[in-house]
C-alpha cells in the first residue's frame, strides 16, 4: 500500500473517531454509551495498527494489541458488569438538552480546529491532520463529564478523554515509548477497577449513582449532625 492511501485511511479513521465522540455524547442509554465506548477502543487499535504499518514503528503493533484488549474488550466488559449489577440502564435527562449539547460540541470542534491550525502547518508527520480531531475528542470527553448526571457516564467520559489523549499521542509523535504506554494502560485499568469498587460503595451508601443525589445526601447528613 502506498503512503497516500494510508494517509487517507488514517484520515478516515480520524473522522470516524470524531463521529464516535459525538455519538457518545448523543446517547440516552447506558448500554449504548458502552457500545460506542467499545467502538472507540477498537478504532484506536485499528488506527495505531495502521500508523505502525505506515511509519514502520513496530512497537506500535504491541500497543495496538494492548489497546484492543484493554479498551476494546476489558474495560467495556467491566463497566457492563457494573451496570448489570447495579441496574442502571437509562441515563435520566441529561443536565443540558441534547441538541444544545450537540451545538456546543460543534462549537468546541470548530474551536479546536481553529487553535490547532497553526501547529498543523509546521508539522510534517503522516498523521498531522488528525491533531485537531484528537484535541476536539479530548474536549468532547470533558464535555461529556460536564453534561451528564450519572457517575458511570462521567467515568466513561474520563476514559474517552484518555482514549483521545492516546490518539493525540499517536497523531503527534507516532506514539509514546512503549514503557510509558504500558504504564498508562495499567494505570487506566487500575483506575477503572477502583471506580468499579467505588460504584458499589456509593450505591450502598447513597442509594443512587447520581452525583447530585450524593451532594444532596451529604448536605442532609451534615444538617443532621
Amino acid at each position, binding site marked *: 500500500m502506498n503512503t497516500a492511501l494510508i494517509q487517507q485511511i488514517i484520515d478516515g479513521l480520524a473522522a470516524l473517531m470524531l463521529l464516535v465522540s459525538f455519538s457518545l455524547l448523543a446517547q440516552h442509554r447506558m448500554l449504548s454509551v458502552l457500545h460506542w465506548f467499545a467502538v472507540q477502543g477498537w478504532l484506536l487499535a485499528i488506527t495505531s495498527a495502521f500508523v505502525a504499518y505506515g511509519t514502520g514503528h513496530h512497537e506500535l503493533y504491541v500497543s495496538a494489541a494492548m489497546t484492543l484488549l484493554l479498551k476494546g474488550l476489558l474495560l467495556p466488559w467491566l463497566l457492563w458488569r457494573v451496570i448489570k449489577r447495579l441496574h442502571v440502564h437509562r441515563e435520566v435527562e441529561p443536565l443540558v*438538552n441534547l441538541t*444544545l449539547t450537540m451545538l456546543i460540541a460543534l462549537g468546541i470542534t*470548530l474551536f479546536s*480546529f*481553529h487553535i490547532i*491550525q497553526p501547529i498543523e502547518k509546521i508539522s510534517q508527520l503522516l498523521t498531522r491532520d488528525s491533531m485537531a480531531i484528537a484535541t476536539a475528542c479530548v474536549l468532547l470527553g470533558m464535555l461529556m463529564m460536564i453534561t451528564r448526571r450519572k457517575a458511570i457516564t462521567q467515568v466513561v467520559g474520563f476514559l474517552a478523554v484518555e482514549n483521545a489523549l492516546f490518539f493525540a499521542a499517536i497523531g503527534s509523535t507516532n506514539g509514546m515509548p512503549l514503557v510509558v504506554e504500558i504504564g498508562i494502560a495499567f494505570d487506566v485499568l487500575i483506575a477503572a477497577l477502583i471506580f468499579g469498587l467505588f460504584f458499589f460503595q456509593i450505591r450502598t451508601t447513597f442509594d443512587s449513582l447520581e452525583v447530585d443525589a450524593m451532594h444532596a445526601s451529604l448536605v442532609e447528613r451534615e444538617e443532621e449532625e
Partner: protein
Amino acid sequence: MILALGACIAALLAAVGGGFLRGSLQRTALCLLLGVSGLLAIVAGMAGLLENPATLTLPLGLPWLPMHVRIDALASFFLLVIGALLTPVAVYSQGYLRHERRLAAMGVFLPLFVLGMFGVVLADDAFSFMLFWELMSVSSYFLVTFEHEQPENRKAGFIYLLMAHLAGLLILGSFAVLYAAGGSFEFVSMRNAELTPFWASVAFLLAALGFGTKAGVAPMHGWLPDAHPVAPSNVSALMSGIMLKVAIFGFVRLAWDLIGTANFQWWWGVLVLAAGSSSAVFGVLFALQQHDLKRLLAYHSIENVGIILIGLGLSMLLAHFGHPLLAALGLIAGLYHTINHALFKGLLFMGAGAVLHASGTRDMESMGGLIHRMPATSLFFLVASISISALPPFNGFVSEWLTFQTALMAPQLGAALLTAIVPFSAAMLALAGALAAACFVKVFGVVFLGHARSEAVAGAREVDGWMKLGMAIPALCCLLLGLLPVLFVPLMDAIPRALLDVSLAGHVHAHGWLWLSPVDVSRASYSAPVALAGMLAIGGLAFWWLHPKGTTVRRGPIWSCGTPNLNARMQYNATSFSQPLRRIFGGVLQPDEHVHMEYPAHKLLTKKVRHVLHVADPAVRHLHRPIGDFVLNLARIVQQEHQRGIHAYLAWTFATVLLLLAVFA
C-alpha cells in the same frame, strides 16, 4: 432629480390636502396625491438607476447649512422600493379608509411620514438626513397611536417613540464621529475623510446599533411587534414594508458609502451575519407562536430584516477579503430581498387589513374558511405567502437563492474559522426559510381554509375594488420579480458599480436571459420561466388527460376517518399548529403553558379543560422595559426638581453657568 422632488412635493401637497379638506374629497385627494407621489418615485428611481448621480443644493434649512440633495444609484433604488409599495398602498387606502371617520390625523401624518422617508433617502448631508429621519419617526408615532383610545396602543407608541429616539441618538453619534473626521456635515467630505480603524469601528458600531434598532434586528426588536400591529393596516404595510427598509438604506449608506468598503474589518461582517442569522431564526420562531395576525406579520418583518442582513454581512466579509465581485453578489442579494420584502410584506399587511375589515378581528383563533367568502383576497394572500416562504417561482425565492449562492462562496474567504461560520449562518437561513413556510401554512390554513370559527367571520364580505386592486399590483410584482430576476438584477447593477467598483450585470445572465446565474453558470443556475413553463405544461397535460368528457365530481360529507359530529372547534388552530415547534424550541421560547383540568367526579370524567398559554418576548423583558423604566425614573427625578421652587431653578442655572465657564474658559 426633478421627478424625485416632484414626488416629495406631491407628498407635501397630500399633507396639506389631507389636513384641510374634509369628507370624501379629503380621502380621494390624499390617496390620489400619494399615488402620484409613489409613481413619480418609481419613475425617478428607474431614471436614477440608469443615469449618473445628480446633486442639488436647496436654499432651505439653516443659513450656513443649506439642504444638500443627491440622487445616486442607492438612493434611486430605495426611491423605487418606496414607490413600488406606496402606489398600491395609496390605491388600497382609497377603499380602506372609506369607513374611517377621523381622517385628519392620518391625512397629515401619513404624507409627512412618506415625505420623511423620501427625505432620508435623498439627503446628502447629515443634518437633513437627521431632520427627515426624525420627521419619519415622529409622524409614524402619531400613526401608531392613531387609535389612541386603547391604553395598549399608547403604551406601544411610547416604547416605539423611545426606541426610535434612542436609535436616532446612536445614529447622531455615528455622524458625529464622521463629522470629526471629515470636518463637515456634507456627505462628500465624510466620504473622503481618513478614518483610523478605531474610529471607523466606533462609527460602524454606533450606526449598526442605531439602524439595527430602527430596523428591528434582534435583540433590539422588542418595540416592533407591539407598534406595527396597532397602526391602521395601510400604515402597517408602509411601516413594515418601507420604513424598516429606510433603516437598511441608512445602514448601507453609512457603512458602504460613507465609512467605505476599504475600512471594513472582518469582525464587522461576522457581527452583521450573526445579528442577521439570529434575527431570522428568532423572528420566525416567535412569529409561529402568535395568533394575532398582524403581530405575527410584524415578527416576520424581524425575520426578513435578518435575511437581508445575512446578505449584507456576507457582502462585508467578501469585500474585506478582497472579492469585490462576490461582495457585489451579496449586496445585490440583500437589496433584492429588500424590495421583495417590501412588496410581499406590504401585500400581507394589506391582506390582513382586508380580513380585519371584513371580520372585525385580528385574532386568528376566531377565523377560518375565508377563502369561500373572500376569494380575491385569499388569492393575493396566497401569492404573498408563497413569496415570503421563499418558494419558486415567486420573488422571495430568488433573493434567498442568491444569498445561499453568496454563502456558498465562503471557502474563498481563506480564514478557517469563517469558512465554518458562514455555512452555519446559511443553515440558519435555511431553517428560517423553512419555518417561514410552516408559519404561512399555518396562517393561510387557519385564516382562509377550514370552517369559520366565529359568527362574524362566517358572515364576512369580500372587500371593494380599490382594495382588491391595491393588493393585485404587488401580487403581480411578486410574480414578475420572481420570474424575471435576470432583467431586474442588471438594473440594480448601478449600486455595486458605485459602491464596490465592480459590475455584476454581465455575469448574471451569462447563459442567456432565461437563466439566472451568480458569477458563473457552472457554479449554479436557476430559471424560473423554464420551471414555470415546464410545470404549466406538465400540469396542463395531466389535467387534460384526467378530464375526459363526462368526468363528474360528487360532493359528500367530510370523512375524517369516520369521526361523526365534527364541529369548527375541532379543527387544528393556530396554537395547536405550532405546538410541536413550541415544544422543540421550548428552550428559546420559554412558553408559559398550563392546563387546568376539572373533574369533579372521577379522573376519567373530565368536565372542563382550560389551556393557558403565554409566550413573552424576552427582548421586551430584558432590554426594552429596563430602558423605559430608566427614562421614566429620570423623568421623575427631573419632575421632583421642578417642584422645588424658584431657588432650585436658580441654583441649577448657576451651576450650568459655572460648568460652561469651566469648560470654555
